[in-house]
């Protein structure tokens, strides 16, 4: 047997013979199983609820009596954000953001901005999700199992005997790393089972794409943990005593796992700060007012609309138009507000992306940020997925309100407008809201930096280890 294999096997034996090993594995498995069960149940309940409410909302929409189309536009409907493919494993921003949006005429009820504005809250420790257990707690297990791996040998004087046997230092380090990895294998397997369970049982996961997403989460987590393993080995090779290795590693873990992510989140939130919900609404109202005020008879935009409409139909008075002029004004107004909203929404989205970029830059120093971003992106529960939903909901809102305005224009006469009704049979012709989650390629766009940060996180301690070597 080569020295490498002997060392790997013996280190593994020494690790699993420790009494703390079984306790740690048991505790980890219980916590992860609990988190996974909770995640699956929570997402399942969410999906059932969505389905129930979506059906109810549809039923109520279709069941509306004969009504004026503009009343229908204000009656409104709801859009539900679909459950992310791996939301059971990693709920991402979904644990902070709203998932329901009320859709009606004139207004973009961007209820979700309240949560988006509180981006820094997304950097709290968060709920006990499987992702949290695997990405934040498992590195701690690596540290606890590994900090003694070389420091103990040196402190006890065994390292001299090991080296005196003619063991190549490279084989010694690689063998120790492999032994530690073998000891960690049951933990990794437990994590893989939790991930697979989320793919199989999670309500959002569908088909082969979900497995690919699961594979990507596993790859990111694997890279992250390999980095921690190498770092632990390095600390153990460098530190004067095992206790110092442990102290240094745990301090670093707390810094890059808790302190830095929170700080980065807080800094990101000021870069520049997002408008609050009411601020956003006020900005939007001012913009809409500037673009054109349908209620102001002297407003140039609507004065021109009136001129052009009358000219097109060759009449002098709106009452003589073959179509309902009130509906035309409303449709134009809807276009203007939708444009204004789209602009403001894009501005806010860009701002959020800038904030996210700050967090991604911090990921070079805190791999937890990188693995968390990758995990949420692959799970389809990141900010990008939320924004895509909000855009889809707004597009749906615009199309159904404009369809109602068209009915209003064509089927309701201008005179005595408010007293008229449209037959209830019209409502069923409106499609229900459906949106697909982001495609895999969309989810992965812009994650290269995070992958690079994780790779650097693995490479840095490798270089350190190569430079430090093994000293007796």
């Amino acid at each position, binding site marked *: *047997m080569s*020295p490498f294999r*002997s*060392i790997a096997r*013996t280190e593994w*034996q*020494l690790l699993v*013979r*420790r009494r703390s090993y079984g306790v740690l594995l048991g505790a980890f498995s219980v916590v992860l199983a609990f988190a996974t069960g909770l995640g699956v149940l929570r997402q399942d309940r969410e999906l059932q609820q969505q389905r129930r409410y979506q059906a109810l909302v549809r039923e109520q929409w279709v069941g509306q009596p004969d009504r004026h189309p503009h009343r229908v536009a204000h009656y409104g409907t709801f859009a539900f954000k679909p459950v992310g493919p791996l939301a059971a494993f990693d709920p991402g921003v979904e644990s902070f953001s709203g998932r329901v949006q009320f859709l009606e005429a004139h207004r973009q009820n961007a209820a979700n901005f309240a949560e988006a504005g509180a981006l820094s809250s997304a950097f709290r420790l968060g709920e006990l999700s499987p992702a949290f257990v695997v990405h934040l707690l498992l590195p701690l297990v690596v540290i606890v199992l590994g900090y003694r791996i070389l420091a103990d040998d040196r402190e*006890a*004087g*065994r390292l*001299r*005997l*090991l*080296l*005196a*046997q*003619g*063991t*190549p230092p490279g084989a010694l380090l690689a063998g120790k790393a492999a032994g530690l990895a073998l000891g960690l294998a049951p933990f990794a397997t437990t994590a893989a089972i939790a991930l697979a369970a989320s793919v199989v049982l999670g309500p959002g996961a569908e088909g082969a794409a979900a497995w690919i997403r699961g594979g990507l989460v596993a790859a990111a987590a694997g890279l992250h943990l390999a980095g921690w393993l190498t770092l632990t080995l390095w600390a153990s090779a460098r530190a004067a005593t095992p206790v110092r290795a442990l102290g240094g590693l745990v301090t670093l873990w707390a810094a890059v796992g808790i302190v830095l992510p929170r700080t980065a989140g807080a800094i990101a939130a000021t870069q520049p700060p997002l408008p609050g919900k009411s601020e956003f609404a006020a900005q939007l109202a001012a913009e809409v007012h500037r673009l054109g005020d349908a209620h102001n008879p002297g407003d140039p935009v609507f004065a021109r609309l009136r001129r052009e409409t009358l000219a097109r139909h060759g009449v002098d008075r709106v009452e003589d138009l073959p179509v309902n002029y009130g509906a035309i004004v409303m449709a134009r107004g809807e276009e203007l507000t939708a444009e204004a909203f789209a602009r403001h929404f894009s501005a806010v989205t860009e701002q959020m992306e800038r904030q996210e970029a700050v967090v991604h830059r911090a990921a070079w120093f805190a791999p937890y940020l990188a693995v968390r971003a990758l995990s949420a992106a692959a799970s389809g529960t990141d900010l990008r997925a939320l924004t895509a939903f909000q855009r889809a909901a707004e597009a749906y809102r615009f199309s159904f309100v404009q369809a109602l305005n068209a009915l209003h224009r064509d089927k309701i006469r201008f005179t005595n407008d408010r007293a008229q009704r449209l037959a209830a049979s019209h409502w069923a012709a409106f499609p229900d809201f459906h949106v697909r989650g982001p495609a895999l390629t969309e989810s992965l766009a812009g994650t290269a930096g995070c992958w690079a940060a994780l790779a650097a996180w693995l490479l840095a301690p490798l270089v350190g280890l190569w430079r430090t070597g093994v000293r*007796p």
Partner: protein
Amino acid sequence: MLAAETLSKRFPGAAAPAVDRLNLKVAPGELFALLGPNGAGKTTTINCFLGFVPADSGRVTVDGLDVASEPLETKRRLAYIPEQVNLYDFLSGLENLDYFSQLAGHRYSKPELRRLLTEAGLQPEAHERRVRGYSKGMRQKVGIAIALAKRAKALLLDEPTSGLDPSASHEFSQVLHRLRAQNVAILMATHDLFRAREDANRVGIMRQGRLVHILSAAELRQTDLEKLYLEAMAG
């Protein structure tokens, strides 16, 4: 087999060199005992042979190979028993021996491992017990077995009998005799004047990094070693 040529080593910050222009040769089948007080440079000399401490000047060779340029090859030709043999507490004596032998590139069957442990003086009923419960002497015997298992051409001993009871010390001396008969070159740092006189072909007395006396076997028989040692220390 073992040779140091004008070997010098000064540790950073130290006023005097730990080893000062040391010349030393140990031939196959010879046991050279290094005497001297703590801090005389005995352990540093051994560390230079092991390649754990790089020489400032001069050179150290094992079987003609330079330790500085062939650190692994020279270690393969050496066996080493420290003052404190530190083993893996959660492995048995047998498992420890097996592991350390594998690192040296040897693969022994269980009966062979048992035979080596017995040869080193470890009672058979202790072979499969965890080292955690071993006395210092028992650990030392596993260390001897590890050295025997290596089938090395040279043996480095750093105060191997300190803390051993007289009978264990005696058993150890017999092991050394057998190894000498097998043409192993042995360099032993020790405080034990009695054992040095009994076992060694030659004795060197070290003081402040230098060999101040070297006595051959014939000279040893005619000398009061203790008196000479005390005189050497008095300067």
